[in-house]
């Protein structure tokens, strides 16, 4: 069993003046090196939960332990943010400076890293996200997907153990979306960075190691994407969609075609259909 890097215990969060809990008694462990997707429709509490992981919000009940720290004061929050980076939804609103490489350096500058080390880590991070040739460019000249890659580089330069993507692909075109997802996947596999991928796109959630579906601030379903989506009725009841091929499998099963529960790809469907007598 791998180390647990995020331990959320009975976490509650209530916005000031709100009558209901935005996050309602959530208990969740994330293992080091895991690629976890959190799926939910708008207002399901998934983004609030993301902010709790990064100590941008502190829980009003329960506790969140990230990389061995349960943030209690400002210095703890700072430590948590160092080990848990975050990429936000709007690519424009998270880039601070007018030059790509300076933005990349922003986090390290805040940490008080020596200039030579900033230089080498920024170059490394930009190379890693494939944006080296844009180091001197102005962020306003970049496409949405490229801006998100710059944002990832800015987080990566700080060498976090965890990166939380809070609907980072929601505002991108399909190519940018695929790009950023592939980048997160690669960082997960090659660098062993734990990824928490928050989204409302089924196709992305289906590709995670583990999937958590949130609804009304609670965890509604949890498990491997395959087994979660296999409960097609429940997923649809939560106001979410399932990937097209799973919907097809569900409809065929309802008509009495004997298909296994966990078909997720066109290939698997084809194989299953060919094996029917």
């Amino acid at each position, binding site marked *: 069993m791998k180390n647990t890097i995020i331990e959320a215990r009975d976490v509650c969060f209530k916005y000031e003046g709100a009558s209901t809990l935005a996050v309602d008694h959530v208990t969740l462990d994330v293992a080091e090196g895991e690629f976890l997707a959190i799926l939910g429709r708008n207002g399901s509490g998934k983004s609030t939960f993301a*902010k709790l992981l*990064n100590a*941008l919000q502190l829980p009003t009940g329960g506790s969140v332990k990230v990389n061995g720290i349960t943030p209690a004061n400002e210095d703890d929050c*700072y430590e948590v*943010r*160092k080990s848990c*980076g*975050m990429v*936000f939804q*709007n690519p*424009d*609103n*998270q*880039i*601070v*400076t*007018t*030059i790509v*490489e*300076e933005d990349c*350096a*922003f*986090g*390290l*500058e*805040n*940490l*008080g*890293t*020596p*200039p030579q080390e*900033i*230089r080498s880590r*920024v170059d490394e991070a930009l190379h890693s996200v494939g944006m080296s040739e844009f180091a001197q460019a*102005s*962020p*306003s000249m970049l496409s949405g997907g490229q801006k998100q890659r710059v944002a990832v580089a*800015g*987080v990566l330069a*700080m060498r976090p153990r965890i990166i939380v993507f809070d609907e980072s692909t929601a505002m991108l075109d399909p190519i940018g979306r695929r790009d950023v997802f592939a980048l997160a996947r690669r960082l997960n596999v090659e660098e062993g960075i734990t990824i928490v991928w928050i989204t409302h796109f089924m196709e992305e959630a289906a590709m995670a190691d583990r999937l958590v579906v949130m609804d009304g601030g609670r965890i509604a379903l949890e498990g491997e994407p395959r087994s979660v989506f296999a409960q097609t009725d429940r997923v649809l009841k939560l106001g979410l969609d399932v990937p097209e091929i799973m919907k097809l499998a569900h409809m065929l099963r309802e008509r009495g075609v004997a298909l296994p529960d966990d078909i997720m790809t066109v290939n698997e469907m084809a194989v299953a259909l060919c094996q029917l007598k």
Partner: protein
Amino acid sequence: MLKNITLGQYFPGDSFIHRLDPRTKLLATVALIAIVFVAQGFSGFLLIAAFVVACAASTGIHLKFLVRGLKPIMFIIIFTFVLNLFFQTEGRELVHWGFIRITDQGLRMASFMAMRLILLVVSSQLLTLTTSPIALTDGLESLFRPLEVIHFPAHEIAMMMSIALRFIPTLMDEADKIMKAQKARGANFETGNLIQRAKAMVPLLVPLFVGAFRRAEDLALAMDARCYRGGAGRTRMKQLKFGVIDAIAAVAMLLLLAGVIALNKLNLF
């Protein structure tokens, strides 16, 4: 319509002046302004003018950029020239026509004022033409840092300036989008008198402001998430460094000052 607004007026290049440390350029500009006020005679002004023209020529920036910069203040130059010309009544009379009386002293003072203004504008323009806004901000932050002892918020001001620079193009795009959206709904921004046109701007400005506040909130969160907590303990990737060329520039400024003082003493013309 909104696309052609250029930010500042930076003219990229690789000349001696372009390569100077922004702090050197800022200090040299202040020094040049002081020297302009030290000069007491035409010879001094000629020396300064020669120096400024030589600097401008070395940057490879076309003269028309510098002249264009003078246009907005042409009125002020002419106004002060005329004012000095008419109201300085000491000295030998040159023209006396009705109530207008022009003296040699008046002409001298008026020309000095005009030349001072022109030199001031041209030299500060050389600064903004050869320094990128971001370098200028870094230079200002570094120059004002000592004042943080007396709680002058040097870092905060520089941070605000650079964020403003970062978001101007973004907000321009947004304004453009909103404008198109409003036009598609039949809004009219181009015709009518001044008041009508100002009123037509309201449906443009309100969403723009709301959007800007939302962006500001997002950005603050993103800065928090990247461990921003003010200027204390912060380092910079690009360190400003004085080099040999900065020393050369300092010597040049000192020589210019010495030259102007010498010409004042000689009292040539």
